[in-house]
């Protein structure tokens, strides 16, 4: 395992409505955010709604251009990348969103195969998809279409899609928000295994305290500032969140 962190954020400031080369009078959503997530580490990012958690996640995922500061994924700086370069970076990232966004015309297995982007032969991609689904307790649902799956099963398929190509970095936005305890447990276990088995770094945005159990570290974002959970600045908010 390399010493280069999977994700390194230094001094990231982000303002909505900001255009490069201009000064904006709006207050920034993110202010000089620093964060490092190492390979195999699971970091939970919490904070109130509208604090900028999802924005930070999309910056880390090369889904949004970095305005100020430095974001590096596996050592590669994201600032100033072209759309094609951003796309290449995203190839090393597994995304899990709040909504599963499965294609309803495809089976669970086919939805997972879509993540393999033709990187492996078709037969191999089928095998990998089946393995990924089995790891999330969906071995018998490979050929099921999304409209025949429960909400929890759909989200697990989405997680399988994110994990099937063994990404070095997994970015998850409220992955357990709509899940029952059993499904949430399966998803969290899968994320923990990803960290352990192939050293995936996991950055999880969540309000769900169940997720804290698998976290190696917790960080808290409020008023645009990121602080380590457990630090004096974050305690009142975390206590409130835990209640």
């Amino acid at each position: 395992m390399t010493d280069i962190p999977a994700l390194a954020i230094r001094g990231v400031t982000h303002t909505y409505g900001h255009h490069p080369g201009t000064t904006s009078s709006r207050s920034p959503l993110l202010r000089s955010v620093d964060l490092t997530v190492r390979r195999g580490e699971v970091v939970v990012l919490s904070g109130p709604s509208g604090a900028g958690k999802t924005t930070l996640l999309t910056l880390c995922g090369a889904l949004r251009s970095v305005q100020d500061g430095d974001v590096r994924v596996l050592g590669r700086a994201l600032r100033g990348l072209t759309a094609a370069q951003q796309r290449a970076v995203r190839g090393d990232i597994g995304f899990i969103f709040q909504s599963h966004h499965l294609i309803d015309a495809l089976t669970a297995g086919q939805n997972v195969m879509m993540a393999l982007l033709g990187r492996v032969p078709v037969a191999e991609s089928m095998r990998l998809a089946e393995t990924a689904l089995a790891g999330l307790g969906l071995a018998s649902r490979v050929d099921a279409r999304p409209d025949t799956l429960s909400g929890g099963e759909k989200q697990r398929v989405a997680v399988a899609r994110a994990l099937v190509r063994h990404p070095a970095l997994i970015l998850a936005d409220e992955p357990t928000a709509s899940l029952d305890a059993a499904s949430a447990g399966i998803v969290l276990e899968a994320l923990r295994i990803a960290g352990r088995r192939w050293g995936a770094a996991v950055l999880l945005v969540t309000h769900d305290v169940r997720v804290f159990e698998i976290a190696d570290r917790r960080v808290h974002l409020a008023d645009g500032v990121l602080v380590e959970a457990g630090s004096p600045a974050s305690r009142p908010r975390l206590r409130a969140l835990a209640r």
Partner: protein
Amino acid sequence: MNPGVPVAYLQLTRYPRRLVIAVLGLAISALGILGQMGFEDSLFRSATRLFEELDADVVLVSPQYQFMVLPAPFSERRLYQSLSVPGVESFSSVRLGVAPFRNPVTRVNRTVYVVGVGRAGRVFVNPDWERKARALEAPDAVAFDRRSRPEFGPIGDLFRDGPVRTEIGQHAVRIVSVFDMGASFSADGTVLVNDDGFSRLFPRRRPGLVDLGLIHLRPGAEAARVVDALRSVLPGDVVVLTHEALNAREQAYWRGTTPAGFIFKTILIISLMVGAVSAYQILSSDLAENLPQYATLKALGYPDAYFLRLTFEKAWLLTSMAYPFGFLLALVVYASATWLTLVPLVMTSGRAIGVYVIMLTAASAAGLLATHRLRRADITELL
């Protein structure tokens, strides 16, 4: 970037009702385009069939000549004058008119196209027509196109028992031979008569006037050079054209001057629009419903080109599903129209392939338009 999943096919077949409607729309579009092209081609081909069979390198017509059913005569002397031009070998003439033809069975009149064949030289390339035209010796002898519309009577059947007697323009005539040309949009039926017969049927026509002058060139003579020479020699009361130019002018009349050309163009545009709109509706609905899913795929690294290709695949699949139905329907329409109108509508492989390509292009354009929204979308807003 092929993940080995036939996404386009699976998405199209996911909602069968929507697919059926789109396929129907495209099939109707194909039918409309093929039907329009068939009718248009038939109209123009049948309109010039007689002229294409004329044996002439160069043709003289009056400046007032508009098209075959509305000719304008000019003096036959111009044809004799043409013999002075180097390269001209011989000439012949044709006189044209329309007159009521009495159905020998029902006694009902119907307008027939009368072609007066000059005696001076060859008139038709078609050997059967030429032989029968030459055999018309008596002024009351006519050759009848047995592929004329049935309203003229069962001439072909009656002729098996010998010459058929009837009237043209209240003049008694004998049908002494039959030939095969076919009805056209401009003439329901055609008869051939000789010069004397034409004068007998149209007594008010001044002798010495013809409608078409057919000039035959010597072997090796250049038509363009002879046309130039004829134009310099002949006065302005005749127009000198090559045979090809006459055919082109006749077709141009039908395409440009008559409402038929405009109607055909309108049908073509409407049919294409029906196809494009049908394709656009299903493709844009699919995109609108799957925007978050496609945004997720973009987050996974799929480029815009993938979605464009996916949409093109769907457009091509739709067209390929619909086209055979439209094509078969068009064949039925062609056969029915040929049977009803006796104007042959022929499906050519060039047209079959050409229309398929046109429809693929239209559906692809619709797909390109449909993907615009996805290309413009901010994926972070969709996730």
